[in-house]
């Protein structure tokens, strides 16, 4: 694994390096929407340049213009890369020039091997016949550069998402990349994989490869970036030199939202009551792998008005726990009890879970939480159609009223509730999903990564919504990979490691260190 020492990369002094990329006055319009308006960005050689902005600000659009996804002619403005004016007509053209983009949704084919994926679209051929032996050798070489030691024939679906990300980088290295664009590279990674990736990027910088990084993880941006460009509402607001301007997270936030956020979390006085929900010895088996348990004898409680956090590394089993409790929608139930309001209940399917007052906001709203074909009002009522129907006939007037009520209450930014949910930004989509579950009036609401991929301003609003739900006497479980978030809103936090609950800490006892210790160790005496 290549690891550049901090000293080495310091001496490169990015602000003095030659400019390799200049995007000048880029304007990109879609019918009815001006996504980018006169945006300019300058990247130097051997630099890590981050782009920050709220969701919908235009970051991804800008990168799509740069990488040729939006070809020359579909935008105004000029791109100059390595002193040459660029008129990319597709992605191939930009890759040919040395610009490679790695999207947030990795472009890997799960069924194909590491080798096949690295050479996808780029196969070493002679008269149309692929030379796999060559490819395989080169793959091993590339994997070494990114710190992978898998068998190159392993299907990509079998390695974790952290390693998949590294395969993507290896793929980029294979294309002789000079400017690497990373869109939310650590969004789906746990702490250690994220660090590994960031170290790798720093190493690439040492080898002369510049990097543009789009990310919401401000602490990481602060950690690795040399410069930061902040984009808001399709306009480039400012560019900061991290060292020279002494940039920290608060400074970045200020640039992104246009004001300082006094605090990331709203003020909240918890009103906690009695235990009303209890899980005892919950054991669940993996759906396909017969001898693997995803939940090992887990037990926990939730009180009325309490916000309970679940902390754990990626793959620790938090989502599995939540989904298996929610109507056995994951895995094979082996044993365990759910006790609500003093009575044991069996939740054999999702409708039963909803009937017993449980709600579950899924981890990935786009694939599991929303029907992207629907509009806001249809989505809002989707989990509780019976409340607005009489003898199976839906009352469209009531549907509209309910949707409007939640739109106002949650301050969803949309012209009307007839708008398609696919048109909303991530934060507003999440609000619609929350509305859907709030309409079922659950007693216990489980939120799985409720603020993933959502900008700082919207996160604040969602925390407020969570606290309001708690104030109503409901129990709220928040599963999150962002420790600061859990520490900010939870009253108690359970830690999970490899399917087992390893500890529980009160708000006063919890800290990133104490949580991390329990998230990475087997259960000791609690």
């Amino acid at each position, binding site marked *: 694994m290549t690891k550049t020492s901090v000293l080495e990369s310091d001496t490169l002094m990015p602000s003095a390096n030659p400019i390799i990329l200049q995007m000048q006055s880029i304007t990109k319009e879609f019918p009815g929407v001006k996504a980018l308006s006169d945006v300019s960005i300058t990247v130097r050689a051997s630099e890590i340049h981050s782009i920050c902005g709220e969701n919908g600000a235009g970051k991804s659009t800008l990168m799509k213009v740069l990488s040729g*996804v*939006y*070809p020359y002619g579909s935008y105004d403005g000029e791109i100059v890369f390595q002193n040459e004016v660029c008129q990319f007509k597709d992605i191939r053209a930009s890759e040919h020039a040395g610009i490679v983009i790695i999207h947030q949704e990795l472009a890997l084919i799960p069924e194909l091997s590491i080798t096949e994926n690295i050479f996808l679209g780029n196969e070493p051929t002679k008269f149309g016949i692929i030379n796999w032996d060559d490819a395989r050798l080169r793959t091993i070489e590339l994997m070494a550069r990114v710190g992978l030691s898998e068998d190159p024939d392993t299907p990509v679906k079998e390695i974790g998402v952290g390693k998949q990300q590294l395969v993507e980088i290896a793929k980029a290295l294979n294309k002789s990349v000079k400017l690497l664009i990373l869109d939310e590279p650590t969004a789906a990674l746990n702490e250690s994989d994220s660090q590994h990736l960031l170290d790798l990027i720093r190493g690439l910088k040492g080898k002369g490869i510049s990097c543009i990084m789009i990310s919401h993880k401000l602490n990481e941006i602060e950690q690795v970036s040399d410069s930061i460009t902040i984009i808001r509402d399709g306009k480039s607001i400012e560019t900061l030199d991290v060292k020279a301007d002494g940039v920290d997270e608060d400074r970045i936030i200020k640039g992104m939202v246009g004001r300082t956020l006094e605090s990331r979390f709203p003020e909240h006085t918890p009103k906690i009551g009695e235990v009303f929900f209890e899980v005892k010895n919950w054991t669940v088996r993996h759906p396909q792998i017969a001898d693997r348990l995803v939940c090992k004898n887990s037990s926990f409680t939730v009180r009325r008005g309490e916000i309970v956090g679940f902390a754990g590394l990626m793959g620790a089993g938090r989502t599995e726990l939540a989904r298996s409790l929610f109507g056995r929608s994951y895995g094979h139930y082996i044993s365990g009890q759910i006790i609500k309001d003093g009575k044991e209940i069996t939740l054999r*399917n999702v409708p039963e879970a909803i009937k017993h007052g449980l709600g579950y906001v899924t981890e990935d709203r786009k694939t599991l939480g929303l029907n992207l074909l629907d509009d806001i009002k249809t989505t809002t009522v989707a989990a509780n*159609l019976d409340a607005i*129907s009489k003898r199976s*006939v839906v009352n469209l007037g009531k549907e509209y009223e309910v949707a409007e009520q939640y739109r106002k209450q949650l301050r969803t930014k949309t012209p009307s509730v007839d708008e398609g949910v696919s048109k909303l930004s991530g934060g507003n989509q999440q609000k619609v999903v929350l509305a859907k579950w709030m309409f079922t009036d659950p007693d216990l609401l489980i939120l799985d990564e409720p603020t993933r991929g959502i900008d700082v301003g919207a996160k604040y609003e969602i925390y407020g919504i969570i606290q309001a739900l708690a104030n109503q006497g409901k129990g709220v479980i928040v599963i999150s990979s962002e420790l600061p978030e859990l520490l900010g809103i939870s009253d108690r936090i359970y830690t999970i490691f490899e399917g087992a609950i390893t500890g529980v800490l009160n708000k006063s006892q919890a800290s990133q260190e104490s949580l991390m210790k329990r998230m990475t160790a087997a259960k000791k005496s609690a």
Partner: protein
Amino acid sequence: MNAIKQLFGGNTRQFGMIFALVALIVFFQFMTGGVILTPDNVINLVNGYSYILILAIGMVLVIIAGHIDLSVGSVAAFVGIVVALTMRDWHLPWYMGIVVGLVLGALIGAWQGFFVAYVGIPAFIVTLAGMLLFRGANQYFGKSLTVPVPTDFQFIGAGYLNEVGPDTGYNNLTLLVGFIIVAALIWSGLRNHRKAVALGADVKPLWVTITKLVILCAVVLYATYLFATGRPGTSFPVPGIILGVLVLAYGFIAARTTIGRHIYAVGGNRHAAALSGVKSKRTDFLVILNMAVLAGLAGMIFVARSNASGPSDGVGWELDAIAAVFIGGAAVTGGVGTVVGSMIGGLVMAVLNNGLQLMGVGSDMTQIIKGLVLLAAVVFDVYNKSQGKASFIGLMMKKLGGRDNPDLAVAEPLRDAVRTES
């Protein structure tokens, strides 16, 4: 220009397939010297195509839910032969024959639905197997011969509304039906307008609603006139009545009931639907079962019209039904489509068939043209959508419960590629 935009719903997106249908009718009216819009011809058209449209009703629900059903032709034929045989050999009266047909359809639907919904086999495979299986069964039971059906059964396929009441020179019952439809349209149109205003939702100005109503009523009245003035003994055909009732019922079910919502939810995002409490397996089972029942009904109507059930009935029906559904705006990936849209799609095919036939074009050429029209219709719609312009299909039906077609939302890179190449 703005006025026209308002008429078509706020933007120029609602030309839709109705525009294409009207254009086709006008074209053939011209090319056939006015024959296509004569009473006898429109009656023929309804008689000859109603069973396909009935299939399209069931098929659109199947496709919305994300499946497909290739067995409908064979199921229709099989139910047809069994009904013909039971009426002949067991001397069942005609209404019992219909009951047998519907029950048999339900059994077949339950069989196929079980495999699709609860065993998890793709519907394509299960219904492909059904296509072979029930074709064979039709030939086995009927011994590959045609089996005639009694005259009173033929009523459902070849019957007309009776001549009733005073002699007005028209068929009175047809007139009555026409007037009732006009009255219902006016009442519901105005009621919806008032309700939307009361809710404070986005409302089109009153003159738009009224203009739409006037146009619709004019069309209905003209059609009523055509049907009421056919040859003596003919009027609006009974299969047309059956079709009309089914369109109303299923249109309502799809747009306004919880089961309708579930079908769209399951088709739009199966996992999200399941995690929202929709019983997705039950929904799958029901659409497949329903399709087979409607296939049985279509088979019986066809047999009633042909006076007999034969071994080659139903061949190719599934493709006509599927074409009607896709021309009508459904998406291959599911979650999109409407009953009314499929009817319009079906009518486009029917008018095309009928018009070409009247022009003397052979069935070979007709087939070629139909294939090209199907392709052209969807390509044109995709192209328009990618230009950010009107979708010729799709949003047209939004008020009646339709959805924006995701197939037609071309991926962004492609969208711009198309634009720069033009």
